[in-house]
C-alpha cells in the first residue's frame, strides 16, 4: 500500500506543449499540459504570441486614430470593438453621437455579434471533428460581411464608426439587405443548430463536460455567454444600457446547466435575440444627422479630452471595457482595455483539471478565444 502511494507520487507526467502552432488552439494559444496517459492533470496557458501592445500605440495616437487598433483586437467582431471604444471616447470628449448614429451602431453591433458567434460555432464544430457545419456557418457569416462591405467597403476590419457618429449613412439598399438577411437567417440558423444538437455524439461530447460553477466564474471575472451559461443573468446591455439598448425589447439567455452544452445553447440563443434586436431596430431607426457636427472630420485631431472614463459594452465574448484617461491633450494619457477573452481564458486553469485531452479541446473551444483580443 505504502509502496503504491510512493509509486504514484513519483509517477512522471508527460509534459505536452499544445501550440502555439496547433490546429485547434484558435490562433496562437500555447497550452502547457501535464498528462497522465490521456488525462490532463494541469494546464498552464501561455499567451503573448500576438502581443502588439495596442494600449501603448493608442497612447501615441490621436483619439480618432486609435479606432483601427480596436478593429484589430477582436478581429471577427470589429463593429463591437468600435462601439466599445467610442462609448468611452465620446464620453471623455463630450461628443455624444446623434440618435440615428446610435441606432445604426446597435444594428451593426448586433450583426457583428451574429457574425462572431457564427465563426465560433463553426470553429467549435471543427474542434470536435465536425467538418461540415463550419461551412454552413461561414456561408451565413459571409452574408453579414457583404452587408458590411456595402456599408463601408471592408469585410472584417470595418473602421466604420468614428467619434461623433458613423462614417457614412445607411441607405435604402443596405436596409433592404439587412431586412432580407433577418428574414431568411432564422431558418438557416435553426438548420445549423439542428446539425449540432440532433447529433448524439455531439451531445455526449458536451453534456456534463467542463462544468463552471458560478462562484468560480465570478472569482475569475468571467463575463459574457460563459457567465450566463453558469446561471448568472447578467448582460451589460441590460445592466448598464448604452446606445439605445434600453429602447429595445430582448431577452438575456441564461442556462443553469453550467457545462459546454449550456455555453453552446446560450450563444445560439444570443444569435436569435440579436436577430430580434436588428428586426426592431431597422424599423425604429429615425431620420436625422448621422454625424455630430461638433466633431467635424477635419478637426478631429484637435479633440481634447480630460478626466477618466470607463465604459463597458457587451461584446460577443463578454464585457468589453475601455478605460480612458485624458490629461487635456490631443492624445489619451492612458488607454486600458478590459478584454473579456483574457479573463475567460484564465479559467481554463480551473476547468482543465482531470479531464481528457479531447475534453480539454472541447472546453477551450467553448471559451471562444480570439487572440487579437487576448494578447492585444
Amino acid at each position, binding site marked *: 500500500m505504502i509502496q503504491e502511494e510512493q509509486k504514484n507520487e513519483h509517477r512522471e507526467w508527460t509534459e505536452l506543449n499544445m501550440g502555439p502552432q496547433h*490546429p*485547434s488552439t484558435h490562433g496562437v494559444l500555447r497550452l502547457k499540459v501535464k498528462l497522465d496517459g490521456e488525462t490532463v492533470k494541469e494546464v498552464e496557458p501561455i499567451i503573448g504570441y500576438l502581443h502588439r501592445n495596442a494600449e501603448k500605440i493608442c497612447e501615441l495616437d490621436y483619439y480618432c486614430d486609435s479606432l483601427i487598433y480596436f478593429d484589430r483586437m477582436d478581429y471577427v467582431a470589429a463593429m463591437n470593438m468600435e462601439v466599445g471604444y467610442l462609448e468611452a471616447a465620446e464620453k471623455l470628449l463630450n461628443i455624444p453621437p446623434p440618435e440615428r448614429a446610435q441606432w445604426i451602431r446597435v444594428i451593426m453591433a448586433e450583426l457583428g455579434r451574429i457574425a462572431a458567434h457564427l465563426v465560433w460555432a463553426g470553429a467549435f464544430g471543427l474542434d470536435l*471533428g465536425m467538418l461540415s457545419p*463550419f461551412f454552413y456557418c461561414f456561408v451565413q457569416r459571409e452574408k453579414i460581411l457583404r452587408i458590411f462591405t456595402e456599408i463601408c467597403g471592408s469585410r472584417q476590419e470595418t473602421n466604420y464608426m468614428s467619434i461623433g457618429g458613423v462614417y457614412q449613412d445607411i441607405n435604402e439598399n443596405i436596409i433592404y439587405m439587412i431586412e432580407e438577411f433577418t428574414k431568411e437567417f432564422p431558418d438557416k440558423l435553426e438548420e445549423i443548430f439542428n446539425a449540432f444538437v440532433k*447529433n448524439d455524439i455531439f451531445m455526449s461530447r458536451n453534456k456534463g463536460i467542463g462544468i463552471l460553477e458560478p462562484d468560480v466564474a465570478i472569482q475569475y471575472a468571467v463575463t459574457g455567454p460563459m457567465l450566463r451559461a453558469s446561471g448568472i443573468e447578467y448582460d451589460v446591455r441590460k445592466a448598464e444600457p448604452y446606445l439605445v439598448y434600453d429602447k429595445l425589447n430582448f431577452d438575456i439567455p441564461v442556462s443553469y446547466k453550467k457545462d459546454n452544452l449550456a455555453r453552446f445553447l446560450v450563444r445560439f440563443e444570443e444569435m436569435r435575440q440579436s436577430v430580434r434586436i436588428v428586426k426592431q431596430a431597422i424599423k425604429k431607426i429615425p431620420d436625422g444627422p448621422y454625424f455630430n457636427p461638433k466633431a467635424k472630420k477635419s478637426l478631429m485631431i484637435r479633440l481634447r479630452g480630460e478626466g477618466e472614463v470607463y465604459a463597458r459594452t457587451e461584446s460577443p465574448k463578454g464585457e468589453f471595457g475601455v478605460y480612458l484617461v485624458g490629461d487635456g491633450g490631443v492624445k489619451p494619457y492612458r488607454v486600458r482595455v478590459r478584454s473579456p477573452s483574457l479573463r475567460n481564458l484564465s479559467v481554463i486553469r480551473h476547468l482543465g483539471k482531470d479531464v481528457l485531452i*479531447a475534453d480539454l479541446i472541447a472546453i477551450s473551444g467553448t471559451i471562444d478565444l480570439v487572440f487579437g483580443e487576448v494578447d492585444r
Partner: protein
Amino acid sequence: MDVLTRLAHFFAPLTHYVAYILAYLFESIFLVIFVTIVLVFMIYLFRKYMARVQLRIGPNRVGKFGLLQLMADGLKLAGKESILPKGRDDLPFRIAPLIVFIGLVMSFAILPYGDFYWIGSLTITHSNVSVILLFAAIAIMPIGEILAGVSSRNKYAILGALRGVAKDVSFEVPMMISVIALVMMASARTSEPLNLSDLVSSQIIPFGIPEVIGLLVFFISMIARASYSPFDMGESDSELVSGHSTEYSGMRFGMFYMGLFGSIFLSSMMVSLLYLGGYNGPFSSDAGFVYLLIKTVVLVLIAFTVWLSVPRIRIDRFVNMGWKYLLPISIINLIIAGIITLGVGL
C-alpha cells in the same frame, strides 16, 4: 478463364513454374496500378462529394472538372522534401509508411473480384483459406501505424499510436466474431467456407439480410479499421495534430494518405463481399466486377457522409462501446447465425 491463367498460357513457352511466376508478377503490377487508379478516383470523388455537402465547388482547376487535381497533388507530394526528425528511430521511421502501403496492396491482392466481360476474373489469390489470409493482411497496416507513432519520438505521435492500439483491441474481437458467424452460415452450403470465392458464391441471398446485426457490427468495425470519423481518434487532427503521421512529410506522408483512403475502399469492398453478395448480381454474371464496384462505392459514400456529419467520439467511449455493446451484440449475432445454419442444414 481468369487473367492469371491467360497470362500463364502466354508465358507457356517458358517452363510451367517460370510462366506462373511471371504471371503472378505481371498481375501484381497490374493490381498495383489498378489500386492506385481506384484510389485516385476515390479521392477525387470524395473531394467533389465533400465539397457539395459543404456548399463548395471542389477541385475544378487542373484538367477537365479538376480530374487531374490528384495527379498534381501527387507530383507535389513526390517533389516535396521528406523531412526526417532528429530524434527518430531511423529504420522503423523509414519503413512504417511502406508497411502501411504494402499491407493495403496485399489485402487488395487477396480479394476476389468476379468476372469482367472478356477480361475474365481479376482474382489473383486462389487459396482455400483466403478469409484468414485477408484478415492477416489487413492486420499488417496497424503495425505500420504503431511503428510510425513510436519511432517519430513525438508526443502527439505516441499518443496517436496508443489510441490506435486501444481502438484496434476493442473493435477487432467483435469484428472477428461476426466473421465467424458468416463462415458458419456459409459452411451449410459449401465445403470450403474459408475460401472467399466460395463464401461469396454461396450467398444466394446476401448474408446481410439474415445477419443485419453482423453487418452493422462489421461495418462499424471496418470504419474504425479505416480510422474514419467518428472513429478517427488515432489521427484526430484537432487534438493530436495528425497522430502517428505528425512527423511525416512528402511522399512518406502520401503513403499514409493513400492508406487512409485505400483502407476505406478496402473496408467497403470487404463489407460488400462478405455481406452484400459481392459480385453476385441480378443480371449477367459477366458484370460481376461492376456489381462489386457499385456496392463498394455506395458504401464508401455512406462512410464519407458519416465522416462529414458527425464529431469525433471520445476514445474512452469507443473502448466502452467496443467491449460493452459490440461484443455482446456480435455474440448474439453468432447465436442467430447458428440457428439459421441448423435450420438450413435440416
